């Protein structure tokens, strides 16, 4: 155990949040049971591990924004990794500056609480906080990812890597696995260094390599015959080692370990824009590359992963649907989507209208429909596909109902047995002894003390 256990900030109560991007609850439970994750098993004996629901869509930018603001996308404004500029089909990539709701660390900072926030996705470019922040995916430049700038030389000296280079898969799966392991090692080194040497009341550190591993090696988790089956388990042993190092450092802190979504093997990728074309709702130019290549007469289009937008008059330059007709069209598309099958199996689990999922000042940015698929069918917004379904290099896809949340308290302390990702921020503030701001949708998982 380190002689240092992190330098205390000004507060009596401290909280540690460790994020494991995309680690499914069911996988964590399996690795506890089969001995792959003994440290997590030990933690579970003195705490509680729960299955957690995440945001819809269940992708990291939306899920982590929902975590950090404790709010639904209708409040924080992030609905995907990409979105359309107002009044246009032109794509932009939402970043930290587009998050409209207050973050957990801003709320904590207002109350004199110092936070270390390392590698949380969707925090790039780094915004100033009371404490330190190193942005996660999709951070590009370490200087712009880091606040304050004084921290940059330390990160460079420690060979910190912002992310795995997923393009390595084009070289080989071995090269990608190597990159994942090196990035994980360096991430852990920096997380522990900052944990030990910086002053904090709230420590938030995220491992993203879990997600990268599962995008490309999820099949290996399931199949003992896979070349990478033991590598997959060894990777999780390393992650477990890190959890053990954190656990050894704890004194009286509350520990949360969470993922932002689950994962499951992919059967097929399903291209919703292809479906919209095939069913007469969407017309695209020959060799379309993005939704900018939409043609006149289109009534709906899709963005990754399962977001469907009605091509409304007045909202989009080629808008083709009157407001009065939009409601009927939404119902019709929703009904038709439910009939998609693959080898006789239903692809779509549920179709949500936006008012079933979202509320708040950013409601107007929401898709008209959100499609949730059954396990195995990964919904995509690509526009260049000629077939409705195919298989790509990816072997894992996200799931909405199998994220995990561990808290270092007995089940009796908990008021919830099936939390939602928006509940984490309120729970953290609760254990810091701080008030929960009115703008958060989630509720603390703990009983009121």
């Amino acid at each position, binding site marked *: 155990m380190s002689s240092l256990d992190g330098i205390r900030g000004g507060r009596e109560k401290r909280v540690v949040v460790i994020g494991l991007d995309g680690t499914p609850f069911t996988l964590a439970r399996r690795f506890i049971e089969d001995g792959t994750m003994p440290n997590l098993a030990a933690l579970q004996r003195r705490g509680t591990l729960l299955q957690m629901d995440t945001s819809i869509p269940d992708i990291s930018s939306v899920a982590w924004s929902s975590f950090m603001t404790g709010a639904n996308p209708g409040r924080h404004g992030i609905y995907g*990794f990409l979105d359309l500029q107002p009044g246009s089909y032109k794509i932009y990539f939402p970043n930290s*500056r587009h998050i409209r709701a207050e973050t957990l660390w801003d709320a904590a900072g207002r109350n004199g609480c110092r936070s270390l926030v390392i590698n949380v996705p969707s925090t790039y*470019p780094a*915004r100033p906080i009371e404490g330190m922040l190193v942005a996660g995916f999709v951070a590009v430049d370490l200087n712009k990812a880091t606040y304050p700038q004084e921290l940059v030389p330390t990160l460079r000296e420690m060979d910190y890597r912002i*992310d795995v*280079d997923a393009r390595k898969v084009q070289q080989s799966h071995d090269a990608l696995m190597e990159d994942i392991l090196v990035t994980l090692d360096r991430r852990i080194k920096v997380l522990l260094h900052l944990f030990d040497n910086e002053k904090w009341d709230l420590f938030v550190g995220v491992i993203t390599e879990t997600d990268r591993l599962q995008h490309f090696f999820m099949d290996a988790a399931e199949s003992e015959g896979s070349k990478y089956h033991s590598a997959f388990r060894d990777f999780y042993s390393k992650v477990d080692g890190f959890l053990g190092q954190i656990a050894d450092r704890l004194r009286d802190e509350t520990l949360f370990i969470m993922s932002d979504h689950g994962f499951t093997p992919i059967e097929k990728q399903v291209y919703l824009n292809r479906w919209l074309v095939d069913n007469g709702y969407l017309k695209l130019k020959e060799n379309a590359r993005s939704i900018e290549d939409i043609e006149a007469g289109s009534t709906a289009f899709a963005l990754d992963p399962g977001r469907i937008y009605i091509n409304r008059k007045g909202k989009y330059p080629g808008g083709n649907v009157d407001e009065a007709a939009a409601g009927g069209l939404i119902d019709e598309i929703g009904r038709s989507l439910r009939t998609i099958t693959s080898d006789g199996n239903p692809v779509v689990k549920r179709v949500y209208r936006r008012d079933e999922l979202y509320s708040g000042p950013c409601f107007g940015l929401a898709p008209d429909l959100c499609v949730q698929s059954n396990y195995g069918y990964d919904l995509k917004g690509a526009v260049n596909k000629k077939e409705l379904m195919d298989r790509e290099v*990816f072997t894992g896809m996200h799931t909405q109902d199998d994220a995990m949340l561990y808290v270092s308290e007995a089940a009796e302390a908990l008021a919830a047995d099936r939390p939602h990702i928006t509940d984490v921020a309120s729970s953290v503030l609760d254990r810091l002894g701080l008030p929960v701001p009115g703008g958060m949708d989630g509720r603390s998982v703990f009983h009121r003390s």
Partner: protein
Amino acid sequence: MSQRGFTIWFTGLSGAGKTTLARLIEGELKTLGYKVEVLDGDIIRTNLSKGLGFSKEDRDTNIRRIGFVCNLLTRNDVVAIAAAISPYREIRDEIRAQIGSFVEVYVRCPIGVLAERDVKGLYKKALAGEIKHFTGVDDPYEEPLSPDCTVETDLEFPEQSARRIIERLKEMGLVPETAGEQYTEEDEEEVRRRLEALGYA
């Protein structure tokens, strides 16, 4: 970086977005290493100007007090950001003359849009006559004649308005040319490549 102080003065009707923009600009400038202080009209009225009402005289006193503090901050090389309706042109010009390094930002939004949005529920009450002296309803608002920057919050996202303000600060030589960049074109291409590598773009 050696910092020179200046004042950014947001003026506009209630609910137009002054506080939102002030906070966005505050974040941008802090990222660049500036010392920044925001003087929010709603907050100032609960302390520095507590007890003042909404007569012209009281409004002028309130704005002069905010201007006085902005001046103190500016001459000590802090960026002071004021977000207050400040409806009277004469007082705004008086403060500009006092401070010198002063950037007037007109946060414009048609009153019809504001009444419809009515985030604080005040327009409904004002239009029903439950609140008196409400700027834009039964009290005047004098638009700036030559603001340094005008943003149209019914037509732009706050981030777009903030970006235009930062651009204007660059033109005025108050912040360096590299300020406020989010994604460069190369960055954006790299983001696209990384998302593609995970099947998202």
